[in-house]
């Protein structure tokens, strides 16, 4: 059964069609790639899934529930977490606090419980800190817990975003160019991390320009061009697809 189903999704910006009638199924437990030249509408598809943008037509179904038009926080609570193409961390807050943000939707204590410092609230705080440390350890940033997020290196900031997303205990994690700005060594570690994420039972979806990473990490790939799906299949199939090759050759700044 598919975890996420995108059905005939259409999105216009003004008069411009950014996504046109795109459909695909993401099966549970896989690493799923979304590729395409610049401006193909990949990030827009992500933003539609997570509710950052409202779609004009189509349906998005997650775990059998129609999440079309649902607000982002509810989508996250249902189990879709994401990272951003241009890193968006809470830069003046500590690394630990950044991860706590992800766990936020799994906590319950409100303002009143905090003001009264109820035992339940305190226990929950401890649990949250424990969870955050565990996630930082998972991505290898435990030592940086007390640092401010803005003081991390570029690659570590990407890892921190992943840790923050993981802290929300998602069923599906959406990574928007996770290797952007990473060196080769870091990229290799990232492939390993993605594998470990999947080993936790979390389905991974990613947008990436680094084709070697995509081919290594993904089991299934969808290719978009000009907002339309032009191909899908296993990495081997995609590599051989003439339409894909043409799409990439047509644009001069990407390579396959």
């Amino acid at each position: 059964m598919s975890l996420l189903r995108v059905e005939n999704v259409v999105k216009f910006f003004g008069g411009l069609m950014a996504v046109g009638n795109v459909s695909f199924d993401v099966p549970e437990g896989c690493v799923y790639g979304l590729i395409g030249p610049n401006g193909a509408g990949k990030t827009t598809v992500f933003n539609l899934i997570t509710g950052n943008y409202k779609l004009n037509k189509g349906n998005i179904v997650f775990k059998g529930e129609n999440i079309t038009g649902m607000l982002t926080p509810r989508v996250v609570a249902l189990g879709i977490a994401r990272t951003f193409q241009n890193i968006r961390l809470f830069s003046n807050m500590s690394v630990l606090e950044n991860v706590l943000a992800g766990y936020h939707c799994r906590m319950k204590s409100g303002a009143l419980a905090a003001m009264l410092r109820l035992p339940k609230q305190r226990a929950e705080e401890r649990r949250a800190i424990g969870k955050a440390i565990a996630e930082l350890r998972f991505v290898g940033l435990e030592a940086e817990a007390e640092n401010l997020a803005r003081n991390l290196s570029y690659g570590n900031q990407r890892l921190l975003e992943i840790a923050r997303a993981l802290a929300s205990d998602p069923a599906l994690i959406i990574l928007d160019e996770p290797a952007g700005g990473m060196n080769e060594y870091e990229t290799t570690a990232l492939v390993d991390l993605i594998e470990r994420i999947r080993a936790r039972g979390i389905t991974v979806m990613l947008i990436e320009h680094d084709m070697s990473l995509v081919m290594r990490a993904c089991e299934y790939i969808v290719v978009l061009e000009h907002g339309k799906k032009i191909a899908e299949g296993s990495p081997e199939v995609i590599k051989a697809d003439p339409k894909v090759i043409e799409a990439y050759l047509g644009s001069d700044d990407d390579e396959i």
Partner: protein
Amino acid sequence: MEQFFTQLTNGLAVGGIYALIALGYTMVYGVLKLINFAHGDLFTIGAYLGLTLLASLGLTGNVGTAGGIFFLVLMVMGLVGVIGILLDRAAYKPLRTSPRLSAVVSALGASIVFSNTIMLVYGPSPRVYPQGLLPTHVFYVFGLPVPIMRIIILATSLVLMIGLYLFIQKTRTGTAIRAAAIDQGAARLMGINVDRVIMLVFFIGPALGGAAGVMVGLHYGQINFTMGWIYGLKAFTAAILGGIGNIPGAMVGGLLLGVIESMGAAYISNAWKDAIAFFVLILILIIRPTGLLGERVAEKI
């Protein structure tokens, strides 16, 4: 019906002044994203400087009324523009990289300094412009009286607005200002002297406020040291109503605010006038969150 049109012109007359002050507000905001709460006081300074110059230079005697007023407005614009640049240097420039609200508090401090300085220099009593300088001719349009001064004020606001708009849209310097408004860092990389742009903006904005001050003084006669606060707030409201940072928006917002006020006062209640105006403003912003002509910038995620 006659009542309605008279109130409409009443509203447009007040709105023209709001628009003129709002132009300066919006100009500074456009480039620096700074809410210059001292702008209203620059307007007051303009009014007082105009009075001083008028009394000491005897301008109207030497070059005729129209010419005298023209020179008077130019001189006040120059002086208030320079004060604007000094204000920027002293109170805002050191806060360029700080949180935006810090500059707001600095602006409020500057506003207190300006209004109290005016009070100490000119005394706390209202001051009065000499009368009879301006034409008092009244036109009749379809039998409705329209004093010529109202036409002059509206025309001046309109001319300044169009001039400013063309300057921003069509000249090289204007392009530099627009570039700096969009992204200062990028503008700098493109070789634009952003500091000069900011200085220019801090000259033009306050200069427009100063011009409005002289016009209020000439037209209404009475000026006082606290008037800048009220006018400043109204102009800020007008600028937001039209979409802050947008030059035609300031004009539309100013005129509309004037009309809303006079219509609200005339047909609902004078005592509730300002409350009605704010209520309409809130309704408009609920429907159009970035003002009437403000662009909705979809945030790139």
